[in-house]
């Protein structure tokens, strides 16, 4: 709140949830013709689930969804989300690729999917991953929001044990943080790309996670992933591995991109940002801007491909 505008905002520092909410409001106020804020729901503890909509007009245009911070301790993702938002308003009108995208499509950006967990990482336990919802019958708290989606819910790669860090929750979409996105995406009906940003591991993953069966669009998703990681590496040489979630990482059920893909959103990807194992979740703040900048190149590759290949 001490920042007067988004130009003077410190993008190279980690910020609290209230600072992020203030940033969102400032960005909307400064760019009323481009940015608006939609509250798609409330977290378990009653915090708003804010989504920034970047739109140059039109009605129900094809759109791109980007989310950050589903796992609260992955602080580089929320910090990158702030940087992405500013980048979009800065580049619109100057960068021809982004301008073309935004002249024809909308971008929805949820910087903090799991605000309760994020708040908890600032106040109580820096290494918290899940939500903060109590689990009846257990002393353990929280659900892993990236196991709560209706995509082979409760299958291998998720846990039914509330104390596990991959606890799926009692049923698919049981968590308001997930249900709010599901309702929003379904009611919109014209989302063409669904991009989830995580850390750490330096991976770019596409469906499926719950099965080794290749996605119908595997060949296209794979070649686009190669383009995206090549663009990303062109900046600082950061190397990403890419492939299906199942092949490149491990079997995981109930994940967001599998759900999105099964909804008919072809360009569904999960990014795992820096690093590969020096700092883990404690990536130093001086790496925020470099990480966000290189990640943006991969996102742009996917967004541009989505724009160029309507379906």
């Amino acid at each position, binding site marked *: 709140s001490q920042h007067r505008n988004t130009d003077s905002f410190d993008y190279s520092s980690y910020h609290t949830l209230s600072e992020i909410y203030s940033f969102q409001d400032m960005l909307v106020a400064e760019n009323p013709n481009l940015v608006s804020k939609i509250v798609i729901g409330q977290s378990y503890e009653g915090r708003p689930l804010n989504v920034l909509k970047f739109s140059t007009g039109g009605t129900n245009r094809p759109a791109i969804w980007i989310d950050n911070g589903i796992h609260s301790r992955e602080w580089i993702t929320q910090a990158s989300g702030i940087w992405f938002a500013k980048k979009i308003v800065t580049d619109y009108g100057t960068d021809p690729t982004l301008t073309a995208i935004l002249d024809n499509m909308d971008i929805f950006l949820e910087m903090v999917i799991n605000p309760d967990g994020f708040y908890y990482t600032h106040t*109580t336990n820096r290494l918290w991953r899940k939500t903060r919802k109590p689990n009846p019958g257990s002393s353990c708290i929280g659900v892993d929001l990236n196991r709560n989606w209706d995509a082979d819910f409760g299958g291998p790669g998720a846990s039914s044990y509330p104390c596990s860090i991959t606890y799926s929750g009692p049923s698919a979409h049981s968590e308001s943080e997930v249900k709010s996105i599901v309702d929003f995406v379904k009611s919109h009906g014209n989302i063409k790309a669904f991009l989830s940003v995580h850390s750490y591991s330096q991976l770019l993953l596409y469906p499926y996670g719950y099965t080794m069966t290749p996605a119908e669009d595997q060949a296209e998703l794979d070649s686009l992933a190669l383009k995206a990681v090549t663009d990303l590496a062109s900046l600082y040489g950061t190397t990403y591995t890419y492939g299906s979630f199942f092949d490149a990482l491990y079997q995981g059920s109930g994940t967001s991109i599998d759900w999105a893909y099964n909804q008919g959103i072809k360009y569904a990807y999960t990014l795992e940002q820096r690093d590969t194992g020096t700092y883990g979740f404690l990536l130093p703040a001086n790496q925020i801007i470099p990480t966000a900048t290189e990640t943006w190149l991969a996102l742009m590759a996917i967004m541009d491909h989505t724009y160029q290949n309507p379906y």
Partner: protein
Amino acid sequence: KKTFEGHQVLRIIPKDDAQLSLMKNLEDMNEFELDFWRGVTGVSMPVDVRVPIHNLESVKMYLEAQNTEYSVMIKDLQVLLDREQEEMKSAARA
């Protein structure tokens, strides 16, 4: 506020299926109070795990008894967390 003085993050790379199975067992053991940062995936794929200071010796002995090699990725987690906190305070002051 939860602190992590002396907690270490170990990197373990299972070399074969036997070690992989061992790591999976470790994931299911509650008594060591482990927090897997990078879970068990496959042979030659790194596993990063935070170990509380009071269980460090036991976990290391367990790994050594099974001939499983590990390295210390983060020597004292709280040192890094304190640094992060200080940077945030400093940025807020600025």
